[in-house]
């Protein structure tokens, strides 16, 4: 199924919620809509589903204009943040409902198969209220899958679940998506979730679509500073710098020997250097540059330590593997390979991204 959004805009009152968005999610694959709250993820999904009409632009399904056509006439299934099930129907009846509506055969058998896939096979005779939150959301997911729709929309489906449950269910979902032909669109605020789901990612920010492409590619080659900020957790560290002969100069600090593409018409010399938290390390390797500062805070997440440093060139966060102890206020030097730096021009557009460790 080929969904195409052409120059979609959405105004609510005098406020713009979506600006001129064109997007064609890859058919048969997962597209993640990544963005903070109010980025426009839900508004966009509602338009994809036919729950809302866009103020401007067109929605095309397999080349046919379906703009404004009601959700009832579209082949779409949706899963929401809240766990929505029929409260008076059992789990089995909930899952069976879309099949019954279409007068299908072998319903019992297919309900059983779907329930088993989502690990709720033992609850088929219970009412949704008798289940935990995670189990209720599994029922909603099974019902959406039972619809067998060619377009499946999931709006932060795991956000109301416990952290560990999220991990489990995300994995199961990725499995389910990979064996289905449906075009899946999945909204999340978490960069890590986008990476784990893989597929394709569309980065949204304040009603604008900033970039769309294969997830790994968007992560490795963020088109702009805004994409880099949205697609990093901890947030990417940014420093003001200057373009000089032979590379990029950090003020009162090191020169990064980087080969930048030629400046457009001798434009501004100001650039921004971006370093992922994971690019900073405690031990120096050959060719590394250093940053000096004071430890503001050290947070241990278990597998990693997040060091917040107030450095000569600005505050930054480093993610170092393992557990390390720091004295607050103590002097600390961090190291990074110049080749790990992103460089953005004065307009915030990407000039240079680190060459991936692997060619993917």
């Amino acid at each position, binding site marked *: 199924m080929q969904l195409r959004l052409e120059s979609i805009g959405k105004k609510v009152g005098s406020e713009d919620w979506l600006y001129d968005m064109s997007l064609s999610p890859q058919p048969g694959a997962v597209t993640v809509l990544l963005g903070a*709250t109010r980025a426009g993820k839900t508004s966009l999904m509602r338009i994809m589903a036919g729950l809302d009409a866009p103020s401007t632009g067109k929605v095309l399904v397999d080349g046919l204009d379906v703009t404004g056509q009601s959700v009832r006439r579209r082949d779409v299934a949706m899963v929401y943040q809240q766990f929505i099930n029929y409260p008076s129907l059992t789990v089995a009846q909930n899952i069976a409902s879309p099949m019954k509506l279409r007068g299908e055969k072998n319903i019992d058998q297919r309900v059983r198969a779907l329930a088993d896939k989502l690990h709720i096979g033992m609850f088929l005779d219970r009412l949704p209220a008798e289940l935990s939150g995670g189990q209720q959301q599994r029922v909603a997911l099974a019902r959406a899958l039972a619809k067998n729709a060619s377009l499946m929309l999931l709006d932060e489906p795991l956000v109301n679940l416990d952290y560990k449950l999220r991990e489990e269910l995300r994995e199961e979902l990725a499995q389910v998506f990979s064996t289905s032909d449906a075009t899946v669109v999945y909204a999340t605020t978490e960069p890590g979730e986008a990476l784990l789901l893989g597929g394709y990612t569309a980065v949204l920010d304040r009603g604008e679509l900033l970039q769309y492409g294969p997830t790994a590619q968007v992560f490795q080659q963020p088109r702009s500073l805004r994409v880099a900020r949205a697609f990093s957790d901890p*947030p990417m560290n940014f420093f003001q710098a200057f373009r000089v002969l032979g590379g990029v100069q950090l003020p009162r600090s090191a020169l990064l020997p980087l080969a930048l593409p030629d400046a457009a018409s001798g434009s501004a010399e100001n650039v921004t250097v971006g370093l992922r938290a994971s690019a900073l390390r405690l031990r120096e390797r050959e060719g590394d540059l250093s940053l000096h500062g004071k430890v503001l805070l050290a947070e241990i997440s*278990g597998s990693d330590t997040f060091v917040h440093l107030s450095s000569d060139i600005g505050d930054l966060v480093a993610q170092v593997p393992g557990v390390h102890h720091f004295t607050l206020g103590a002097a600390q030097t961090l190291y990074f390979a110049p080749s790990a730096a992103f460089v953005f021009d004065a307009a915030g557009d990407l000039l240079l991204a680190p060459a991936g460790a692997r060619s993917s």
Partner: protein
Amino acid sequence: MARIDLDLAHAYKAKPQSEEDYALLPLKLSFEDGGAYALLGPSGCGKTTMLNIISGLLTPSQGAVFFDGVDKTAATPQERNIAQVFQFPVIYDTMTVGENLAFPLRNRKVPPARIKERVGQIAEMLEMSHQLDQRAAGLSADAKQKISLGRGLVRDDVSAVLFDEPLTVIDPHLKWQLRRKLKQIHHELKLTLIYVTHDQVEALTFAERILVMSRGRVVQEGTPEELFERPAHTFVGHFIGSPGMNLLPLSASGGRVVLGEQEVQAPPGLRIPEGELTLGIRPEYTHVADPGQPGVVLARVEKVQDIGTGQLLTARVGPHAVRARVGLEQALPAAGGAVGLALLGRHSCLYKNEELIA
């Protein structure tokens, strides 16, 4: 500020019979004065029940709560002098940011000069100084929750500040900022803080000591490092870390060690007690190694995910899934291929009946 001791149990049912009837099984716990604690566990583990018992919203069905050694079991939240921050902003929309922050102090008849000083201090820490005269009504959910946090922290004479999943409504990027603020405020004010969450990253980054809870029990109390390196219980191993600890059956008898279904050579110097055990090894410590080396098993690659900062390998040892976090530079076979994984070594933990024994 106060030291808080709990010696109690709680059942929502009258006359509890079995363990399942208890929301909190009998426990004895202490929260030191000025400490930062997290209660961490899945929903239904009893963490919110414990928080409500500490705050005085709930009276335990048996036992008592002590503040600085004084029995406060029957005292109201006001009498216990507790400040609370909830999941969603609790503020007055019609007041300004400054008035909201001052409210808990005005209520307690704190002198105006002192109020001004404290509100200024808290606003500065939360980077809201420029918004003090702004009405709360027009602010974003994030900003409102910041005010809630500020209101919880504005009084320096409270016994403790209790947080119930305070960062739920906050976007990931702002969470980083707010966690940093909370830590700094704790560092400066030395208030006793107790923070309830299901999110291990929040718990570990916020607290000095974490109480991991499961089914009405505290299964381990420890520092982030202890919970990560030496989980005392397989539940802690599984719950802390993302993904959690790899757990697989190990049986040792007469010097023979069988892991999954493969016999492995024990690495020299590693003590392996005899019996039917469970091996725990963190994905961070699971390395690719040559099969045939001590501690290495042969696994089949199921999938490899690029998680940006590294690769997440999922493999199978017999029917058991094993995950490894490996560097981007590490070459890995494609799905279906064989890979050697070092599972037994100095980072491995051994469990008997879910409890750590070696």
